[in-house]
């Protein structure tokens, strides 16, 4: 009766009709089906998330627990120990590799965004003959096997005296980031309606002003997404890092992690996992932040 009292006169007939609907005959079957569905979801979730859970759990073990192995320590941790984390920073000096990775990934991302934005805008907006071919070429370049590049690049860096130096990596990582960034940004720019720029032009803006005040602000979500992606790609590299970096001080984070657990007597999985957790945090934060930024509805109001 309360529903009827609260619904306005127009909606009342609908509320009444809902109650008068015949009872569901298939009730037991549909409930079973729903339970089965959610059970399946739970299983899939468990299987996918278990590795991450395990890494997290191992990160909070002490060295002795790690040595004992998983069969003795059980599924759930008895207590949380931050010893692995602190060890990473004090004994293993994890901070330096982290900073190195940050510098290199950030540097590569900045260059990527600048270059790929200009390329993307040109390819999307100007009637360049063979634009599609150029784009295809750029994409294909991204498929080139990284390992095949290591030999020649090593020799080059050696001759330039740039081995064991993180800065060349900024340029080298463009191999990962530019192809996909160009492709993504070309797509983003071509989705921005031409009308917007034309409206800005007719309103009295020069091409540069139109670009600055209209196109770029509208493209920001796309640029942001691309930047995140580029950062992740650059951050995750191992092949180039392991080939060109020698001393621990110049290691990047992925490289440093590998060296953590190496000791003659024990592989310190807890320290490795702690490092993995640390390494994942900036990426996870970025992605979460980016998700809010990628608001497709930003362009919804400009058309129609």
């Amino acid at each position, binding site marked *: 009766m309360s529903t009827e009292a609260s619904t306005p006169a127009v909606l009342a007939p609908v509320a009444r009709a809902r109650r008068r609907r015949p009872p569901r005959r298939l009730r037991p079957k549909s409930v079973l089906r729903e339970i089965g569905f959610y059970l399946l979801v739970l299983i899939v979730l468990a299987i996918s998330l278990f590795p991450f859970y395990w890494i997290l759990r191992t990160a909070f073990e002490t060295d002795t627990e790690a040595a004992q192995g998983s069969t003795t320590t059980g599924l759930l941790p008895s207590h949380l120990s931050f010893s692995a984390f602190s060890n990473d920073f004090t004994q293993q000096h994890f901070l330096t590799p982290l900073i190195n990775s940050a510098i290199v990934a950030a540097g590569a991302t900045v260059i990527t965004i600048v270059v790929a934005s200009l390329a993307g805008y040109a390819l999307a907006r100007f009637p360049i003959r063979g634009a599609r071919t150029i784009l295809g070429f750029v994409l294909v370049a991204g498929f080139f096997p990284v390992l095949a590049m290591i030999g020649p690049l090593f020799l080059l860096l050696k001759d330039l005296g740039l081995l064991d130096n993180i800065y060349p990596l900024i340029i080298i990582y463009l191999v990962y980031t530019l192809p996909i960034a160009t492709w993504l940004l070309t797509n983003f720019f071509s989705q921005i309606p031409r009308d917007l720029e034309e409206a800005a032009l007719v*309103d009295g803006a020069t091409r540069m002003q139109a670009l600055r005040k209209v196109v770029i602000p509208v493209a920001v979500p796309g640029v942001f997404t691309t930047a995140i992606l580029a950062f992740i790609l650059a951050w995750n590299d191992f092949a180039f890092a392991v080939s060109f970096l020698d001393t621990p001080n110049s290691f990047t984070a992925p490289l440093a992690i590998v060296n953590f657990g190496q000791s003659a007597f024990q592989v310190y999985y807890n320290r490795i996992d702690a490092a993995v957790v640390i390494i994942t945090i900036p990426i996870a934060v970025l992605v979460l932040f980016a998700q809010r930024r990628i608001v497709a509805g930003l362009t919804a109001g400009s058309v129609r």
Partner: protein
Amino acid sequence: MATVELEHVTKIYPNGVEAVSDVNLQVAEGEFMVLVGPSGCGKTTTLRMIAGLEDVTEGEIRVGDRLVNDLSASDRDMAMVFQNYALYPHMTVADNIGFALKLRHLPKDEVRAKVEEAARVLGLSEHLNRKPAQLSGGQRQRVAMGRAIVREPAVFLMDEPLSNLDAKLRVQMRAEVARIQRRLGVATFYVTHDQTEAMTMGDKVAVFNVGKLQQCDEPQTLYDTPANLFVAAFIGSPAMNLYRGHLNPELTRIRIGEQELELPGRLRGLGALQPFRDKPVVVGIRPEDLNSVEDGDGHGTAGAILQGNVDLVESLGSEKLVHFRLDAERVSGVIGSADDDSSEGLDAGEIAASAATVGTARVAASSRLRAGDETRLKVDTERLHLFDPDSGDALAGPGRVDTTAPSPAAA
């Protein structure tokens, strides 16, 4: 002096397509010029050339005696309302409207005052701080208009601004736009494919087809005196009924199929018709010039009756549309366009092309005709239109003044 002149304006794309051919137009200050025609006829291209968004291949565009061909769109002092509004999605309504003013470095309070005034005129005052995504279609359209009017430009350009609105809103905004334009007294070019918009809004209407200007005149003149078959079929809704006919040697009667109509006396001596004695022509009868003869009230109409069969009757409340079949060959005056998304004028033309034997008559609401009935339609023969079957040019019509060689008119 913000008059706009187009002289022999032509646009040929690099791939050879001639989108606009030899267009000549003059629009005086404060005049509302409508560019109308089916999709792909070149009207939008012409508008964009005026705006500076497309290059002019040949010809000259002048604004107030100043050649603007090479002037960039940013420097032409024209405001444009786009079909999809093209509002800046990342800016508020107030910023959208004030964008052009800010670009010109006007002081902030002046900008704010002008924006608020424009918003008041358009009823947008409560929405000034919203983003376009939060507005309805009609509100966005008004923001687009506000962005244009706040600039007080020399020329207004509008590219089908109402076509994305629902029918009722469109009718409302039609009057609004016309009123605003009249108040501001700015030369305006308005592109539409809707001939009703063209007729109701324009001081002058320029009818385009396949890149060529067919006729540019006041709406009533276009209706009474279309220059050719295309204009005749395009203007007026439902479209003019066009049939193949045959004139007799004395120019007193015209045979349509198996039936005959008596021609008004003034046509006998018409210079333009002389070469067509005993020759085929195309005859046009507007639906409103047909009426249903019922209950024997057809005295004195012997030479002005067409007999046909009723296919369908559509009741509009105020009148009825009778779709009828005659045993005569129909002519389509509208060249079909690639775009199937058509409005009133084009719809009728496309019907003409496909359902080639069905004509339309506007009859009184009191008519009792039903589908399948035999009908006798009274033709207002004074308002017949005659066209050259080869060139499509108009030969005779109700508003047509004979400018060819004078001949003694038989009574």
